[in-house]
């Protein structure tokens, strides 16, 4: 039913799509470091060539009980449940910042375990529920 020309066009097009997919795959793979919005504490722990002067973002969960506030400064620990980084920050914190929740800190590393942030972002997770349900869940824990 398909004429020769139609078949030829199918081959061309699928060849084009196939090559395109491969090219995009390798481009994204090589750009991986730049595509990720933040590093986890484990990423930083495993990194060998770390530059302390470059601005980076570290993300994870705010460790429970790790938040210490005074008038000017806030200190807390970002954890990915394997490795941890202590973050020091002075400035506005977003409303959704709280213990046990996701957070992203932007700033510079002092060393592999200590991070000085100049911006804090709260990261929301994929869970949406009414307060009553959340309370009920917490009671069960």
């Amino acid at each position: 039913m398909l004429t020769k020309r139609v078949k030829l066009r199918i081959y061309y097009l699928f060849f084009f799509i196939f090559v395109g997919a491969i090219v995009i795959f390798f481009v994204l793979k090589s750009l991986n470091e730049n595509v990720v919005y933040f590093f986890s504490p484990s990423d930083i722990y495993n990194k060998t060539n770390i530059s302390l002067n470059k601005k980076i973002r570290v993300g994870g969960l705010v460790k429970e009980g790790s938040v210490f506030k005074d008038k000017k400064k806030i200190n807390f620990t970002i954890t990915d449940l394997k490795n941890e980084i202590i973050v020091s920050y002075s400035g506005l914190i977003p409303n959704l910042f709280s213990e046990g929740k996701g957070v992203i800190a932007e700033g510079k590393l002092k060393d592999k375990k200590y991070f000085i942030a100049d911006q804090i972002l709260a990261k929301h997770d994929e869970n949406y529920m009414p307060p009553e349900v959340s309370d009920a869940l917490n009671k069960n824990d």
Partner: protein
Amino acid sequence: MFKNFFPNKVLSINNKTLRILTFVMFLILFVGLISALFISPPDYIQGDTVRIMYVHVPSSFISLGCFAFIGISSILNLIFKIKIMPLMAKSIAPIGLVFTLISLITGSLWGKPTWGIWWAWDARLTSMLILFLFYLIYILVWKFTNNYERANKISSVVAIIGLFNLPIIKYSVDWWNTLHQPSSITLTSAPTIHYSMLIPLLIMLGGLAVYSIIIFLMKYKIELIKLKINKKNK
């Protein structure tokens, strides 16, 4: 058979059908908005900010769906040269463009109170912006290329290249660390969004989908009439 049958059917869609569809749309949107803005509960940490989601998520769905349609119809168009395919794709493009814009703007409005910033160059947001640019290029190619056959070919190629972007948008939140949260609704597992919020979301999706269909039918009809006029003039 398919070729001759479909345009005539669309051309015979009269204003009565459109009026009924419009009525259905308003009905669904009314129910959807009431349940999204008043009946559904606030979120346990976001509070009332969560209500932006009821517009944001359906808009994103529709903008991705529209581009998927444009891309696939472009493939079929290049291979089989079906006359009505480019007309359908051309009619659906502005809808996708507008919904992408709505998705970007509502996302930004949500991002400020939630994350603390309006915009971030993370993978999801950036790939969504690229989708917006693809829509823009696609529409501009149709607008500024005078030769119909050439416009058809260039726009199809643009759409097929843009098609690669869709899986990147969809899976960006799983492949890389992003500021944007992962999907709450997936095909493989139970939704992580409470049903009292999921239902208004689905109603809103239905309402906006019907809206898209109405606009599509109106635009598609105009394109078909244009085609007939051009044929006569030749």
